[in-house]
């Protein structure tokens, strides 16, 4: 029987697990949360589902629980090796899971959105606020300022209003002319996304009463130490300051690539989404033949597409394991691939409407929050050193060397390399990622030795 370890119990990981169990594989799913669902369906087993998508998440979580695999909750993976091994910790104990195949369904993280003061207490991400709503049923105490753009921002705004919260205003970073640019992509988006588009328009209507300041190009979080006001600047040169004790920011999401980077998988630059993603075939098989990827960790296409890409990865793994003949895989994959292509068409519309935005990055902006390295420090070491890459910046300044391992500064260093040295983004390089992917105590490491002795 083929052994498969799946990292992540969101829509992609759960779908793959259900499918692989159906194909009689031995499946172990590990996930860092106490219950299945991933971020999108956080707490889905205990909270009231809101809407169609939530209900499908609740159903999937139930099928996943009934699928008969091993599910290790509150467990973090800190090393993934082709071979294939997944090193995990749970409650202070480390262990190694060995498998024939590993599926990384680790999802997305929010794209860092640096501006002066973004590290202050009182500035959080929209995703963080949404997790607080889903897992702790809490909302900002006072009318809250939102800054950024993208579907998650609109979704949270709607959820916040529904939950009885209120919005002080939206500092919209969407550049000018995006709706006009997106017009050619509407048709290609309709088949998959008409329902989401209708929903999005409905949110915009509900947001009509909210104060919106458009075309923001610069932000500053002011306060000592806690946020007391927000300074902003628009593309039209309007500059002003508003009082605030909480600012929620969002600049889209990017695949969480630390696991695939550290496992030595090849990555490619996605020009539409301005991010790296693991290079893989239609089944999510990476350049390491026993490592597969699915869901937003493979490419940002949203939760509904993650249901499908999880199943596709399961088919690919079953085929690679010799459990399914090629014709059967091709037949089953055809429909999934067609719908996924429609999902990509919808995504192209979203990416055009809400592109990632580079706000002004003045010298005093904190690039690396962990090691407290500013933009001026990074610019200084890059200037006059055309061959210095991200790892050189890390060595000299310590940016990217802290506990978050560059999750919050990797793309900013990438941006500064392009700013100082020019050249295409795919040549700018990225921080080298090394295990442990999550912090590990010596005691936990030692517990690994004790087991194998």
């Amino acid at each position, binding site marked *: 029987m083929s052994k498969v370890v799946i990292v992540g119990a969101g829509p992609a990981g759960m779908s793959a697990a259900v499918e692989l169990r159906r194909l009689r594989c031995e499946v172990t799913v590990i996930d*860092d949360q*106490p219950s299945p669902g991933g*971020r999108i369906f956080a707490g889905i087993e*205990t*909270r*009231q589902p809101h809407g169609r998508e939530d209900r499908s998440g609740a159903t999937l979580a139930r099928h996943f629980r009934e699928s008969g695999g091993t599910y290790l909750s*509150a467990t*973090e993976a800190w090393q993934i090796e082709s071979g294939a091994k997944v090193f995990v910790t749970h409650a202070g104990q480390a262990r190694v899971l060995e498998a024939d195949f590993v599926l990384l369904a680790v999802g997305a*993280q*929010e794209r860092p959105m640096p501006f002066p003061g973004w*590290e*202050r*207490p*009182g*500035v*959080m*991400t929209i*995703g*963080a*606020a949404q*997790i*607080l*709503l889903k*897992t*702790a*049923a*809490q*909302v*900002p*105490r006072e009318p809250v300022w939102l800054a950024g753009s993208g579907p998650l921002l609109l979704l949270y705004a709607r959820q916040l209003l529904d*939950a*009885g*919260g209120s919005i002080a205003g939206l500092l919209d970073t969407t550049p000018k002319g995006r709706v006009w640019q997106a017009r050619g992509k509407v048709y290609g988006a309709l088949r998959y996304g008409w329902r989401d588009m209708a929903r999005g328009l409905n949110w915009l209507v509900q947001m009509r009463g909210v104060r919106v300041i458009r075309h923001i190009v610069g932000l500053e979080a002011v306060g000592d*130490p*806690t946020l007391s006001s927000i300074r902003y600047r628009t593309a039209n040169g309007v500059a002003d300051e508003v009082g605030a*004790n*909480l600012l929620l920011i969002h600049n889209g999401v990017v695949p*969480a690539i630390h696991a695939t980077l550290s496992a030595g998988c090849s990555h490619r630059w996605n020009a539409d989404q301005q991010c790296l993603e693991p290079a893989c075939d239609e089944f999510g098989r990476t350049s390491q033949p026993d490592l597969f990827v699915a869901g937003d960790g493979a490419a940002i296409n949203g939760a509904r597409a993650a249901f499908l890409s999880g199943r596709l990865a399961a088919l690919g793994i079953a085929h690679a394991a010799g459990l399914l003949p090629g014709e059967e895989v091709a037949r089953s994959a055809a429909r999934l691939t067609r719908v996924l292509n429609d999902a990509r068409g919808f995504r192209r519309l979203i990416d055009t409407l809400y592109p990632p935005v580079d706000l002004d990055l003045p010298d005093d902006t904190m690039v690396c*929050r*962990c*090691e*407290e390295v500013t933009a001026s420090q990074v610019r200084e070491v890059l200037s006059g050193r055309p061959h210095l890459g991200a790892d050189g910046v890390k060595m000299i300044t310590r940016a990217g060397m*802290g*506990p*978050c391992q560059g*999750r*919050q500064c990797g793309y900013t260093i990438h941006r500064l390399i392009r700013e100082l040295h020019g050249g295409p983004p795919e040549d700018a390089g990225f921080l080298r990622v090394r295990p442990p992917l*999550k*912090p590990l105590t010596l005691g936990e490491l030692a517990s690994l030795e004790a087991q194998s002795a």
Partner: protein
Amino acid sequence: MYRKIGGEREQAKVNVRVDGEVHSVDRGEPVAAILLRLSDNGVRRTPISGAVRAPFCMMGACFDCLVEIDGRPSTRSCMTFAQEGMEIRRQMTRPNPSREHAA
């Protein structure tokens, strides 16, 4: 900065201590959520400049929500879930590894 919304579900309660003070909270909610309800003034100081920080990403990726939980310093409060008797301390001074060693 945050408040609970009313209704929807009745949650089982547990008692936790935050800097020595007992609070009744929802069992299983992220510790960071509790800290964000209790105070606006951050949860830790950075070891480098001593700047104050608070939870930022709530998904284990940013490491800004580090506090001491049940004697273990620099634990992500967003990835730790409230249990009866949990002992939580904000890290408003530099983490001191020798204290953990002595314990």
